[in-house]
Each structure stands twice: as C-alpha cells, then as structure tokens.
C-alpha cells in the first residue's frame, strides 16, 4: 500500500539538505548542460554513469535528481538570451522570453524564468510527495490509443500557438512528424527515407535538428543587424542593476498563482510516459493565453508567456519520475537512465519500493524539493550578468553561436555527418522563418514522430490493423473532441474578427515570422 509518514519526510528533508555538497555541483553542472544545445540531462547522465554507479544509491539518486531539475531551468537561459532553446522543453520560452530580451528586459525575463522554474518545480515536487499514491494511477488510464491522440493534440496546440497561420503551423508540424518517422521501422527494422545514409537508420537525431532549426537559422537571421537590441534596449541593459532583478522577482511573486497552476499542468503531462516537457510547456503556454485577460500581449514579451512554459517544464521533472517510482515505467529518457542506475544498485521499482525502501521512493522527490530551494539562491544573482550577452554585437555573436552549436551537433553521437545535418536543418529553419512557418512546430514534430509511430503501431496491432480502434476509448474520444475544438476555435475567432465582432488582435497568435522581427516589433510596441 502506498502511503506517507510526516516523520519520515522530515528526516528525508534533513538528510537531503545534508547532501548539499552533492546537490550544488549537480545544480551548476545541470544549468550549464541545460543551457548548451547538444547536451541534456540524459546524455550527461550517460557520460557520468561511471560516477553515479560508483556512488551510494541514495547519493546517486540525489545527484541525478538535482541535475535533472537544473537542466530544465538551464534550457530557458539561451532561449531567452539568443532565441535558442537549450532543450526541447524550453522551445516555448523563446516566444516571449526572447521578445523581452529584445526589449532590453533580458534580466527580468531570466528572473521570471528562474523563479517560475524553481517555484513550479518546488510546488509540484511537494504535491507529488503528498499525492503520489493517486498520481501514480494516472499513468494506467492512458494506453496507446489515448497516447496517439495526446501526441496529435500536442502538435495541434503547438501549430495553433506558434504560427500565425494555422495551416502553415499544421504543415510545419506534420512535416516534422514525417521527418521524425525517418529510419528503420520498429517491427522489421527496414530502413525508410534514409537517403541511403547509415547514420539515419536510427532516425533523425534530435540535437542536430534543434541546433539547425534554432541556432543556425537564428545566426543567419542576425546577419542583417548590428546588435540584438535597439538603442533603448542597449541603454537599458547597460544601465541595468540589481533593480531589474528585484523587479523581475516582484513580477514573478505577484503571479504566484499563475506559476502554481501552470506547474501542475506540467506535472500532469509529465506523468504520462513519453509526453515530456516540450508538450507540457506548449500546453501550459496555450492554457495561460486562453485564460489571460490580455491574450494579445502574448508573443510581444509578456511575463506570463515566460512563466507558463518555464513553470510547466519544471513541473514535468517530478511528473516523469512518478511512473518510474510507482509502477517501474520511466516517464522519459532521463528517467530511463535513472532507472538503469537504480537497477544496477539492485533497487526494484514499483509499488513494493514504497514498502521496502520508502527512503528511496520518497527521497528522490524530497531531494528535488531541496535542490529547487538551493537552486534559487545559486542562480538568481547571476541573471544580471547573464543578461549582458545581449550586448554582444552580432558580428561576434553569430560566429560564436555557429561555432559552439555546430560543434555541439557532433557531441551526442560523435558523427561528423550530424554537423552536416545541422546545416541542412539550418537552411530549412531559415526558409521556414522567412516564410512564416514556425520552426518550433517542425522541431516538436520531429521529437514526437518516433513516439507517435510507436503508439500508433501498438494500437493498430492490437486491432489487427483496424483504424477504428483509435475511436474506441472514452478518454481518447474526449481528446479527439478537444483536438477538433482546438482546430475549430482559431478559425471561428478569425471569422469573428474579420466580421468585426471579436477583440482586435485577441486571437492573433504570436511567434510567426523571424524572431528578429518579433523583437523589433516588440521594441516598437514598447516605444
């Protein structure tokens, strides 16, 4: 029986706090790893396996949990400063975070991101400790049929949110899904659409795709400008002192409820195996805009547009560990690496863990709480200095971005081929940006592509190829209706606007066009 004991939790909290000397380096490493495209918690944990396998299991778990949480926070830093998400989960942060940076408000945006990440992660970790027995049941209700719809629903939301034009957003998303389906199939390992490259047999690698679509295309966009900021923005950043950090802190705390509920959106999505931070961040962004009194401000550098995705992608961190600890099913790739380490130490995951080793089962979530508390003191003072990246002239910044990220494309698989692939995606991303196809929708499609295929084929094999199985579940059907509504609503709003009945700009989606353009427009709107 799953249950919890306050005395045990108090003891675990103090024990985790006593491991601060493990948590702090893990946080710093996690922030750096999260901020560098090409690295993430999963591949860093793989690199560090010799270290974690040699540690005591409790310390290894604390180290991995702290680093995992920190990577989700770190991913938002380059997303805000240079429009390049460090991880897929930070892709939604670019929309308003970068727009704020282009207005000279990078420091504030970073503080918003840090506070939202920390509070969102902290509150959801506490919630997981309290409600773990009930949350674990959620993963049982979503099977392959529901997951197919969840994936399509996520992609549709991204198309609706990220692109000004719904049709272009859907084309970008489905192109991404098809690119994600490159490689050998899951049953017979037959290569599909690999252009004869052996390097594509495992599918299109995500890191070169992310680097190409975001970093290379962004660097190509920068060519026409001397600086990221206009004169007013430059002056603001140069004069920016601690007051901007304090102001960012004030704005974040004022929006505490926003942080809480978007964090819970992340938690709920994180519990679903495979859904992940990318979908969570976009769903939270979309929900935030939907319930906002000022939806027209989203995409122009709105604080709520930074808070929602950052809180949600950190809410995911505790969520992905729920199915791992409760039923032994990893909620994501990082959780899978953690599972390997735990199994190496002889830990049997699942309901028995809560009876036999409650200090481990609950300890991981308590250590996340401690990590988040320590994280805010570590990262907040750095916002002021990080914001100065936006002062670098583009003739230096663009080569720096290109140099670091192209090299980063090599890092995960160590193929020179992946660097070339990043360039191909860079050109695709550049064309997409110039013609109003949002690169985020393409990237999320590529991320979801392999997962979508796994669930689709699993569902179809159960029904022996009968597609009607996709409409055979009550939860799935509700999700289909929501999907249809999310497609119909923007069209309905557009028609209303054209006929002059809707609020001007209310339905206008942000993010289309070049990010440089968004920044410029944001600058103008501020002026």
């Amino acid at each position: 029986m799953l249950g919890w004991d306050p005395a045990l939790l108090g003891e675990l909290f103090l024990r985790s706090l006593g491991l601060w000397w493990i948590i702090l380096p893990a946080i710093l490493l996690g922030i750096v790893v999260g901020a560098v495209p090409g690295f993430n918690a999963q591949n860093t944990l793989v690199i560090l396996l010799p270290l974690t396998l040699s540690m005591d299991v409790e310390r290894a778990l604390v180290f991995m949990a702290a680093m995992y949480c920190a990577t989700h926070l770190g991913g938002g830093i380059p997303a805000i400063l240079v429009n390049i998400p460090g991880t897929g989960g930070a892709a939604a942060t670019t929309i308003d975070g970068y727009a704020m940076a282009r207005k000279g408000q990078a420091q504030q945006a970073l503080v918003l991101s840090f506070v939202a990440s920390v509070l969102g992660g902290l509150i959801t970790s506490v919630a997981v400790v309290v409600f773990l027995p009930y949350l674990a049941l959620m993963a049982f209700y979503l099977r392959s049929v529901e997951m197919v719809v969840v994936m399509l629903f996520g992609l549709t939301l991204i198309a609706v949110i990220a692109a000004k034009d719904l049709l272009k957003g859907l084309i970008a998303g489905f192109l991404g899904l098809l690119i994600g389906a490159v490689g050998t199939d899951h049953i017979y390992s037959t290569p599909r659409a690999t252009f004869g490259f052996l390097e594509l047999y495992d599918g299109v690698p995500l890191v070169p795709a992310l680097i190409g679509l975001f970093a290379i295309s962004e660097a190509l966009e920068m060519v026409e400008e001397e600086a990221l900021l206009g004169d007013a923005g430059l002056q603001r950043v140069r004069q920016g002192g601690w007051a901007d950090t304090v102001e960012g802190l004030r704005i974040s705390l004022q929006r505490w409820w926003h942080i809480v509920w978007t964090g819970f959106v992340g938690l709920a999505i994180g519990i679903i195996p495979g859904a992940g931070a990318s979908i969570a961040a976009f769903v939270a962004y979309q929900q935030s805009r939907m319930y906002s009194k000022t939806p027209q401000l989203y995409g122009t550098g709105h604080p709520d547009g930074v808070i929602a995705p950052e809180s949600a992608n950190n809410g995911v961190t505790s969520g992905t560990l729920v199915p791992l600890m409760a039923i032994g099913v990893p909620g994501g790739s990082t959780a899978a690496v953690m599972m390997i380490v735990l199994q190496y130490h002889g830990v049997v995951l699942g309901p028995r863990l809560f009876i036999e080793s409650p200090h481990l089962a609950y300890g991981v979530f308590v250590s996340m709480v401690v990590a988040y508390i320590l994280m805010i003191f570590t990262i907040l003072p750095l916002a002021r200095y990080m914001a100065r990246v936006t002062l670098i002239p583009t003739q230096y910044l663009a080569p720096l971005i290109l140099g670091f990220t192209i090299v980063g494309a090599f890092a995960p698989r160590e193929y020179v081929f992946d660097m070339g692939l990043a360039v191909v995606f860079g050109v695709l991303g550049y064309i997409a940006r110039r013609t109003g196809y949002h690169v985020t929708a393409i990237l999320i499609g590529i991320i979801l592509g392999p997962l979508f295929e796994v669930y689709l084929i699993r569902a179809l094999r159960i029904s022996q190829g009968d597609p009607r199985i996709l409409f055979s579940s009550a939860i799935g059907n509700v999700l289909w209706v929501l999907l249809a509504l999310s497609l119909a609503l923007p069209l309905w709003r557009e028609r209303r606007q054209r006929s002059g009945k809707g609020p001007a700009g209310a339905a206008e989606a942000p993010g289309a066009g070049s990010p440089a353009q968004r920044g410029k427009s944001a600058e103008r709107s501020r002026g």
Partner: protein
Amino acid sequence: MSEATDAPRRAPAGSGGDLVIPAVGAAFAAYYLWTVWDLSWEAKADGLVVGLVLLVLIALLVARVGLAVAAGRARLGLDALVRPVRPQLTRLALLAAILAFILTLGSLGFTLGVFLFMCAAMLILGVRSPGALVGVAAGVALSGWLLFILFLDTRFPRGPIEQLLARLF
C-alpha cells in the same frame, strides 16, 4: 499590434515564398511513401497517415495561394527569400564557411578547424581588427579543446594542434 509591424520582412500572404516549405514537404512525403510502398503495413502505416495528411494540408495551401493569385491579392515571387541581395550573399558566404569547416575538419583537426572557421565567419560579418579576430577565434578554439578534447574526450578529429597540445599536457 506587433504582427502589423512584422510585414516588411515577411513574405506577403500567398507569395511564392510560402510555397517553398510545402514543395520541400511534398517532395519529401513522396520520397517517403516511395520508400515504404512495398513494406509490410506495420512499417508504412505511420508514414502513410502522416504523409497523406501532410499532402492534403499542402494541397489546401496551394489552393489558397492559387485563389489569392487569381484574385490579384498575391503574386508568385521569392522576394522574402532573395531580397535584399547583399545580406543573402553574406549568408551564402557563411554557409560556405560552415561547409568548408565540416569538410576540412578531418585534416585540420578540431582546434585549428574551429579557429579558422571563427576567423572566416567574423571576417565575413565585417570584423577587421586583427586582435579581435585572433583573440576571439583563439578563445573559442581553446575553450572547445578544453571541453571536448581534454575533459570529455570526444572523438573529434585530432590535427596538428591537438598533437602539439597532447605533448604539452
């Protein structure tokens, strides 16, 4: 508010630029479907579903552009992608520098390759100060060497600089 100011650098609605990504998408979908056509249904189901939906969406967009062109509300041209010409030449030069970096990486090695690429990219973007060129490029190359070669021991191609540094450290 902001979207209105986006107009100068974005392709006009229904312009030829709008059709580049769909053209790439349609060609890729056709290639994908061709490669899976003779496979078992499990291997092609995903490609068929996604590819056909993509083709339908592209057809809708092409129809929309066609109607806009027929009504005189749009024109087929690639202005958004090819104009202004000068920055496009700079972009092409940058892409050429990237490709040269990737192709010569095997013979030059990581550190020298990154150094030369950084110098080339900054020169293309207008940096003329020798101190800045050498300083920034050397800083990036040495940081990369420290992180990727010395600490992470990745399999980046080793060249003369790596061999020299290996003797020193």
